[in-house]
């Protein structure tokens, strides 16, 4: 696409983005809340967003659906005070609404399947009602300008400027990184254009491309983004991404998940862990050497079998020793 047109589109989106941002005061309020049963805290919201990501991934929804869902969720939470127990209903409604906008009809998962997999306690009609409430409060039709919008634009601009380097800037990677950032509520306070640009800059630094850096500066100047602000968010993004990429994994909180198994399987679990009834018989070192019968008895296969089965271990300390004792005993008896 024409570079000029792209820049123009960029400008337009930049001017519009403020209408789709969640209220900063609302977000700050959530951030400052401590774990409480009556208010949503940052930790609460972050965990829920991670759940949304799991569901997005599981149902094969696009990143755009996820980003849009988070945008709706943050906008709603910033303006309405809700109780933590309603959070899963709200978040699932946002996901469903976002999916209806972004996804093809054939890829949409039914609401009852959403609820079942999400292990939620409310009904389909509850979800329907919540969706209406959210749509009303946000005046939501279908459009929202998010950091993803800008990422896509930046990517296309970069592509149009340097055709030989198109392999190096991976849009998928950028999307994954954006997703990681969105899982923390603090990044919802950033202007989407700046957040996207910070991500772009991180990636450019990683691949060390002079050309790309030029383009990034170009965009920054075009949108008149202040150095200070960009730096601030770049640092935070860098921090977040280093946590995301670290080899240390966060211990999964699987205890929250329900593991429902069929009755037959449940019956057979742990069926082996029964205490045995017979008391232990300790093995004595001189087990075999007590057996005077075994060398005299014509029927004995015990002796030969012992030596043959220990054959491979002939070097072992117990092999020659006890046989020697046996021979000694035999001698004594004759």
């Amino acid at each position: 696409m024409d570079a000029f047109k792209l820049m123009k589109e960029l400008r337009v989106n930049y001017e519009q983005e403020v209408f789709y941002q969640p209220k900063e005061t609302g977000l700050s309020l959530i951030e400052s809340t401590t774990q409480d049963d009556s208010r949503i805290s940052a930790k609460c919201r972050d965990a829920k967003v991670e759940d949304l990501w799991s569901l997005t991934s599981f149902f094969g929804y696009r990143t755009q659906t996820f980003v849009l869902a988070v945008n709706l969720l943050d906008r709603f939470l910033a303006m309405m005070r809700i109780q933590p127990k309603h959070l899963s209903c709200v978040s699932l409604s946002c996901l469903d609404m976002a999916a209806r906008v972004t996804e093809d009809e054939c890829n949409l998962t039914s609401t009852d399947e959403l609820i079942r997999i999400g292990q939620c306690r409310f009904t389909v009609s509850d979800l329907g009602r919540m969706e209406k409430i959210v749509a009303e409060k946000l005046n939501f039709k279908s459009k929202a300008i998010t950091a993803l919008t800008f990422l896509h634009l930046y990517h296309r601009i970069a592509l149009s400027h340097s055709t030989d380097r198109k392999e190096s800037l991976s849009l998928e990677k950028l999307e994954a990184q954006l997703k990681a950032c969105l899982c923390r509520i603090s990044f919802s306070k950033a202007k989407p254009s700046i957040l996207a640009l910070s991500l772009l800059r991180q990636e450019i630094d990683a691949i060390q491309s002079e050309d790309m850096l030029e383009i990034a500066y170009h965009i920054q100047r075009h949108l008149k983004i202040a150095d200070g602000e960009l730096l601030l968010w770049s640092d935070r993004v860098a921090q977040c991404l280093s946590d995301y990429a670290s080899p240390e994994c966060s211990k999964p909180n699987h205890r929250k998940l329900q593991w429902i198994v069929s009755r037959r399987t449940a019956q057979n679990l742990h069926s082996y862990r029964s205490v045995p009834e017979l008391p232990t018989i300790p093995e004595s070192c001189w087990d075999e050497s007590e057996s005077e019968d075994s060398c005299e008895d014509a029927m004995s296969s015990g002796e030969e079998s012992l030596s043959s089965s220990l054959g491979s271990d002939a070097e072992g300390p117990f092999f020659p020793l006890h046989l020697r004792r046996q021979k000694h005993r035999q001698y004594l008896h004759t």
Partner: protein
Amino acid sequence: MVVHGDTGAPLSSRAMSSAATTSPSVDKVDGFSRKSVRKAKQKRSQSSSQFRSQGKPIELTPLPLLKDVPAPEQPELFLKKLQQCCTVFDFMDTLSDLKMKEYKRSTLNELVDYVTVSRGYLTEQAYPEVVKMVSHNIFRTLPPSDSNEFDPEEDEPTLEASWPHLQLVYEFFIRFLESQEFQPSIAKKYIDQKFVLQLLELFDSEDPRERDYLKTVLHRIYGKFLGLRAFIRKQINNIFLRFVYETEHFNGVAELLEILGSIINGFALPLKAEHKQFLVKVLIPLHTVRSLSLFHAQLAYCIVQFLEKDPTLTEPVIRGLLKFWPKTCSQKEVMFLGELEEILDVIEPTQFVKIQEPLFKQISRCVSSPHFQVAERALYYWNNEYIMSLIEENSSVILPIMFASLYRISKEHWNPAIVALVYNVLKAFMEMNSTLFDELTATYKSDRQREKKKEKEREELWKKLEDLELKRGLRSDGIIPT
């Protein structure tokens, strides 16, 4: 009045059994015999060549009670009673010798009590008499089972008819062995290898009560007679090997394994080579038998005990299980998965790393099994905290192995409960290692795109070929122009 022929048993059993065997053609439908018809056939009643009576009823002179006799005379009376109890009665014939049967029963009862409470009764002469009495009563050729049609899991076992006496004999013998006065050094002259061999053969009895007593008897003998231990182990070895590789028939596998469990538990460290061989050559192959469900709990217990004694055996054990992994029997697969979880519960992290790749390749296959119980059991591993911690430590190796099947069945499996469980597992992986998970998702998606593209190209190619007018296009030499 029942007639006893010269060869006792056949005549009486023929007189007793009223089995009306139906002709083979009615039995089978589509080549499989109908179960209802099988059940209707009356079981051939037990017969035994033991009871060769001369036609006259057995007479035993009643002896006084032990408690009614002064202490010095008791040992001799004890011996006399033992000798009397050597007489065996035919319980097939429910009407004969009722009075004498009752006398023997009450005598046996008396002997059981006597052995339990008395002191100073066990003289050296008693030992051979005790062993003789026990041998006469219990050692017998077991009747053949109701042939190949006996399904140990489904059919009722044929119970031993002379159980009223037999039970008391076993009870008596156990208390004798456990008595404080019992001296193995004297007893070993009479309880020898021949005795043990006959005892082991009895484990094939269909009567579970008898096997339970035998289990206790053999356990005590193994404990007290150090000289017989190697022999017993060797014979059990042989029984199992015959069972696995020749007959696949033996009723006492579970009981023998239970005894082995208590022996394994007591192994000294370091483990002897003989024991390790037993594990690899006998216990692992035991998993291949069709009737595994009858003794699997005991077998799994033995395996886990071995691994707790010597963790370095983990790798050969798991590789052995993977080698024998059931391919067509889902019930067995579920058992294997249960056993594997038990093993993983005690595995050392260093051992885990050695076998994680082949192990999770198999688990990945189980998870995608269309049999929902197999899939469910495999997925439930992710609910085990210890296994989860092992997976977390090695997620970079395990996740790529599991990913493709998990992702695929989340879309394709018919069972909704399985899909829900897969979500739990995928979520756990996502939280464990987000970067790797995202990479794998991206690769998987692009692989799928590529596949779809190829498929589309293939279809278009076929369409092109169809559109080509082949008939007209064929040249005289038969070559189709491209």
